[in-house]
């Protein structure tokens, strides 16, 4: 922790970076902090309780406008950063990516390639709790599944915290804001809510890195992160990619194979 603070303070002091995005103690759990001065860097912490995916801030113009930015990235954040890089959303020059290894060492990445090499050792696995719900749902009849999701969706009031918390939801105009045509009804109602979630999931297909930020952000506790997570597990073997390992040559929906398997087209 001290190492991180010292390094961050140094970076800010010698002007290498103008901003360090990291974590500080929050009301109940760690929360994002934005250090502009060496003093502020003293507040930095880093632990397994730091769950926010800070990569979400890397596409915010207000923050990224000025000078070089350092970010203390967790493994999920590193995955998001790679995906963002692939999608032309990051400027390698203006970004210094830092992480803290399990040996408490501060690691700085010279470029995205190094990040790729680093995260290759970390497999993205379904957590017990996630697997539990998925199993439960798969055990249900289709009608029961529909009831389950409709009940969940009835709690959604369209605050779009899921969108706001997702590093890959960086569109300046989201489809829900599109009104010619009005693809998705803007009010909160189970169907409109589900349509929004289906869109979110489809837009994440082959892009989602499985950080779960969407689910964590949901104030009414809908397990929406499972939609993309489940999709990832299903598609990975079908289309031959590894969950949580962003691929440079197109994603699940922008590419194809002549022998893609399917058994439902007559």
């Amino acid at each position, binding site marked *: 922790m001290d190492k991180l603070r010292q390094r961050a303070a140094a970076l800010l002091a010698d002007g290498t970076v103008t901003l360090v995005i990291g974590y500080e103690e929050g009301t109940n759990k760690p929360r994002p902090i934005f250090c502009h001065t060496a003093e502020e860097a003293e507040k930095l912490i880093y632990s397994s309780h730091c769950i926010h995916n800070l990569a979400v801030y890397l596409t915010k113009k207000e923050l990224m406008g000025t000078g070089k930015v350092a970010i203390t990235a967790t493994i999920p954040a590193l995955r998001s950063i790679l995906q963002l890089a692939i*999608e*032309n*959303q990051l400027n390698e020059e203006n970004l210094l990516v830092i992480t803290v290894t399990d040996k408490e060492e501060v690691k700085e990445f010279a470029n995205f390639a190094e990040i790729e090499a680093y995260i290759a050792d970390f497999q993205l696995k379904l957590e017990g709790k996630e697997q539990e719900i998925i199993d439960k749902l798969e055990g249900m009849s289709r009608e029961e599944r529909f009831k389950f999701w409709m009940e969940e969706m009835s709690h959604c009031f369209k605050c779009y915290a899921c969108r706001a918390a997702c590093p890959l939801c*960086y*569109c*300046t*105009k*989201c*489809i829900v804001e*599109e009104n*010619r*045509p009005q*693809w998705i009804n803007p009010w909160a109602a189970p169907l409109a809510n589900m349509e929004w979630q289906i869109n979110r999931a489809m*837009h994440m297909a082959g892009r989602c890195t499985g950080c779960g930020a969407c689910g964590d952000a949901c104030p009414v506790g809908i397990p929406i992160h499972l939609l993309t997570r489940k999709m990832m597990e299903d598609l990975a073997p079908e289309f031959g990619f590894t969950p949580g390992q962003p691929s440079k*040559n*197109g*994603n699940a*929906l*922008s*590419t194809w194979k002549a022998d893609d398997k399917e058994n439902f087209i007559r």
Partner: protein
Amino acid sequence: MSKIGVFICHCGENISATVDCERVAQEIRKVEGVEYAIDYKYMCSDPGQTLIKDAIREHHLDGVVVGSCSPRMHEPTFRKACAEAGLNPFLCEMANLREHCSWVHEKGEATTEKAFDLVKMLVEKVKRNKPLDSIKVPITKKALVIGGGIAGIQASLDIANTGHQVILIEKDPSIGGHMSQLSETFPTLDCSQCILTPRMVEVAQHPNITLYTYAELDSLEGFIGNFTAKIRLKAKSVDHKKCTGCGACFQKCPQKRIPSEFNAGLGNRTAIYVPFPQAVPNKPVIDREHCNYYKRGKCKICEATCPTGAIEWDKEDEIITEQVGAIVVTTGFNVKGADFFPEYGYGKYKDVLTGLQFERLASASGPTLGEIRRPSDGTIPKKIVFIACAGSRDPAKGIPYCSKICCMYTAKHAMLYQHKVHDGESTVFYMDIRAGGKNYEEFVRRAIEEDHVNYVRGRVARVYEKDGKLIVKGVDTLLSGQQVEIEADMVVLATAGVSNCGAEQLAQKMHISYDPYHFFAEAHPKLKPVETNTAGIFLAGACQAPKDIPETVGMASGAAVKVAGLFSNNELVREPLIAVVNRCAPPQFSTCVGCFMCQTACPYNAIEREEIKGRDGKVIKTVAKVNPGLCQGCGTCVAFCRSKSIDIQGYSNEQMFAEVMSLLNH
């Protein structure tokens, strides 16, 4: 508020027989935005079109829906009519009331209701149509003809004679195709080569034709008027610039027992060879598969004998790139060969032949110099049996269609046999005799009546050998299914015509569609017989379906005219139904976020990057931009774009959305 005009066509009785056209027109008037609606017997007729034009002027219509036949049929007609009345043609849409409604449903309430729904759907679409300006693209006035058979030869000559450049490629060492293998041709019995050879020579000498033999299409990119063709020139191992065609080489070549393709396996050729004496170009190539040097690394006798040192041992395949504006595909057909007729003993008994082999036997330039002799022992067959429909019209063999030419050439074969073997006896087993065509029926009758060919209506069950004779077992269905057994010296199978090998891959290279038998698909069975669904690519000859020479030549000239027509303009006017990335006011400039995932989705690499710069010249953002020349308007990017920043003109999100909604709003 829109002012839409709706025009319901009866199509004579074709629509009105099952759809209450008058009521559809009445009902649609009540729909919001519909200013005018009327039904009429023939909308596509002159008075019908005038009706539309007058209505546009009179009622100041800003959109037109014609409820009639398929847009694939008359969309251009009605769009043109609208344009003539001063309405942008892309403000005209068609509801398919005939192919998709009246023809597929019985008369009744539901059918009329569906017709109404289809019209209403298009009304909702057209409300959201935008006036579009056609896209103009330059045309490369050079044609590529693929396949040097009679179709390719005819097409090349016709195009070249209109003063345009033609590139003709042929996969074999010589042009000429199947026609050059034929002896005489029905129904006139004039010698095939006598009429073909001059054309072949003309091709070789024509200033506007560049001929590449021993060449194949490697890849094709681009679109109508602007194709880029990569052509593989297979290594001939002989430099045709140096070669004088003296023929010393193949006289000396030690490899003399290679079955000759030209003689359909009945004769032999050498490893360095000219397929046949009248070949164009009349210069040899080396068949590396059989050449001693390429097989064992020594020999080179041809090199030693060649007076001009034309042999090029290390020559490799060469790929050349040609820009062409149109393509005529004339790759021809093939005949089913060995192992396809075990029951007829083809391949097992030397004297069971295919029609093509019999052509070679009968041909003066053939292995027997035109004498009909048994391949087995060289004797003259006294009894010969011709089996028509060998494979054709036989779903069990996977060929339900009729190969069309067999009836005629079988009659011809029998006739030729009778002319050459006066004491011979010929029998034809047939299912039906299909002799449609000028002088065809007369030709068959001549075979039966004047040349006493014995026609037996019935199928042959099997052919087997019994002490030197071929026993043909069949039934005579006219004689109440009586068993017939003939002891023959030779059996000739009128084998089915099938698509040429590699047709499927070639179609996929060119993105043209094909039928289940891999014959290439024309754009319309009646009205667009020489076009394909891919603009700028045309068909001629047996690659589309088995056909005889007159038909093939006619089709080739037809395709040539289509090409000439295309080349008669300096630029091609293309429908502006292409994708566009939106642009909007600063500070956004475009809702595109520049993820460029669409680039990986686009089949045509039509999506480019555009840097949007501020006054100071600094790049504000980089967004996608569609190249209107390359975009073909498939819309894959549109469905793929998350922020809906790309839309496709003519099939826009608003339009498609409105169509779906309107279908279900009741």
